[in-house]
């Protein structure tokens, strides 16, 4: 018995070493790389080479993959992108010419080959440190032809994780309100504004969508019955429940670490925040203050809730401890502060502030009230901020181009640009977790 156990253990150790040590080593090297980079202030220069392919079909795939990868990496705003020099590969043996890279200032080089195997897409990608010539990553991605975008974005996530330690936004979705059909409905798109899908068709007024952090439930306010009800839809089973209480049911947000949704209800005579279960049952009441209490948002561990309250006069943002229910005021600058959004990555809260000059602008502040930063200005109204799952970006609704449109920016306010072209107004975006 003992010898059997022993040999099993030995085999396990050997197998472990064979499979996992090489990966561990690579991870260590990558961490060193990340550490060095963090000290530097400038963005890493990345040269993306065109994916090689032979065959008509494969060449089309290569083009799509190159566009997807380029656009994906560019979207993060984290890198200085450049095309790879033309003389990268030696004509004779295909060896890489790293000298050509460093002469154009590239620090990282990526390149690969796509081929067709059993009708499936096979993308063989590699990433190199241009200075040392060391290979940092080599990985094979496979999938159906219809999955070229997700395949390319999977590589993007791996590359970004390699260089920064985080997988960025790839795979995440944004839900939002659009009136392009003539009535306000809820839509979902990919993080980059592509693949827009209509989620509701109440032909009435649908508002304030919010996805639970596991992506299972969508909550929103819907006037389909003639009254503003809270709807909760299970996205996998496609079944819905509604909470139709006397009065409003507005501005739902899911509480991290639980399956409950916080929402403002007024059936007890005043607009207060309550927790509701996915089956629509009220779990408990959270606020007991005369006047409007609305727009809850939760800290990453769900232990604190930021929300808007009229309890000190005009609308200001407060933070309440879920355990003790004690609340303290967060915002003191400006007379109209609403739409708080707590970063999934830490203790920052974005919100919109209506200023004396008539503009509505987006601000970020630490949960302890320090570090107040204005992110937008001089661009009409900028509302409804929502953080990317890694806390690196913010999506919001801006009227700077006339109609309300979704914009994204880096968390420090740089690189503000429209997310998509679409008819109608786009508002109230909510950025989901990566699934």
């Amino acid at each position, binding site marked *: 018995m003992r010898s059997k156990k022993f040999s099993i253990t030995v085999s396990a150790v050997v197998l472990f070493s064979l499979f996992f040590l090489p990966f561990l080593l690579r991870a260590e090297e990558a961490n060193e790389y990340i550490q060095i980079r963090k000290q530097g202030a400038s963005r890493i220069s990345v040269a993306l080479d065109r994916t090689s392919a032979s065959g008509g079909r494969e060449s089309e795939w290569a083009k799509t993959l190159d566009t997807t990868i380029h656009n994906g990496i560019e979207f993060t705003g984290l890198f200085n992108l450049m095309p790879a020099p033309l003389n990268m590969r030696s004509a004779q043996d295909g060896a890489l010419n790293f000298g050509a890279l460093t002469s154009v200032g590239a620090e990282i080089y990526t390149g690969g080959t796509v081929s067709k195997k059993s009708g499936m897409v096979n993308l063989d990608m590699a990433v190199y440190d241009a200075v040392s010539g060391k290979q940092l990553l080599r990985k094979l991605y496979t999938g159906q032809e219809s999955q070229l975008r997700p395949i390319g974005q999977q590589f993007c996530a791996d590359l970004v994780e390699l260089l920064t330690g985080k997988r960025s936004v790839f795979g995440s979705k944004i839900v939002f309100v659009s009136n392009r059909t003539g009535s306000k409905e809820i839509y979902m798109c990919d993080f980059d504004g592509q693949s827009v899908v209509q989620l509701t068709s109440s032909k009435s007024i649908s*508002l304030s969508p919010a996805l639970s952090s596991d992506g299972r439930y969508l909550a929103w306010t819907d006037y389909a019955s003639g009254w503003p009800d809270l709807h909760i839809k299970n996205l996998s089973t496609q079944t819905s429940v509604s909470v139709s209480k006397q009065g*409003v049911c507005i501005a739902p947000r899911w509480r991290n670490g639980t399956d409950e949704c916080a929402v403002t209800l007024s059936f007890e005579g005043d607009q207060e925040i309550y927790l509701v279960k996915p089956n629509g049952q009220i779990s408990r009441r959270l606020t007991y203050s005369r006047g409007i209490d*609305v727009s809850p948002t939760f800290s990453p561990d769900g232990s604190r809730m930021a929300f808007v309250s009229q309890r000190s006069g005009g609308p200001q943002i407060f933070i309440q401890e879920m355990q003790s229910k004690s609340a303290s005021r967060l915002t003191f600058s400006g007379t109209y502060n*609403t*739409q708080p959004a707590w970063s999934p990555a830490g203790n920052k809260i974005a919100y919109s502030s209506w200023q004396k000059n008539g503009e509505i602008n987006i601000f970020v502040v630490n949960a302890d009230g320090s570090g107040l930063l204005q992110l937008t200005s001089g661009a009409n109204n900028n*509302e*409804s901020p929502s953080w990317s799952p890694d806390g690196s970006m913010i999506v919001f609704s801006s009227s700077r181009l006339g109609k309300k449109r979704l914009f994204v920016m880096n968390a420090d306010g740089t690189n503000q640009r429209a997310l998509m072209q679409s008819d109608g107004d786009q508002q109230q975006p909510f950025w989901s977790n990566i699934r």
Partner: protein
Amino acid sequence: MRSLYVPAVFLLGACCCNKEAVLTPVPPPLAPVTAPVQSAIVAPMDDVYFAFDRSDLSPNAQSQLRANASWMSSNSDAKVVLEGNCDERGTTEYNMALGERRAISAKEYMVSIGVNPDRMSTISYGEERPLDPGHNETAWAKNRRVHFRVK
């Protein structure tokens, strides 16, 4: 009803005489002795307006509500929905709640001057249903309202 009375009499008169249909014009009936129908005198209900970010009632608002209550008492079968609205400025969720406070504020005043609360329900449309789509103070002032919709 009065407008139907005269032609009806003519018709009846025509039916009674088969052979020689001599239509004698019937003199118009005297005005009925009952009091005139109230709705001809009492103005229909009108919108009640609010100051920016407020749900309390100005003297003008109270005066309009009294007029609306008068209509309600003259039309004792009528049920109404008080629809609370905001102008487009400010943010959506907060305006939803503010619209409701306006509707409730109006309803509570109506109750205080004798209107049966069971005849009135409230709803908020926030900034979702502006009366005036303009982007100026004139439009905004029109949109900060509670509208009385007869069911």
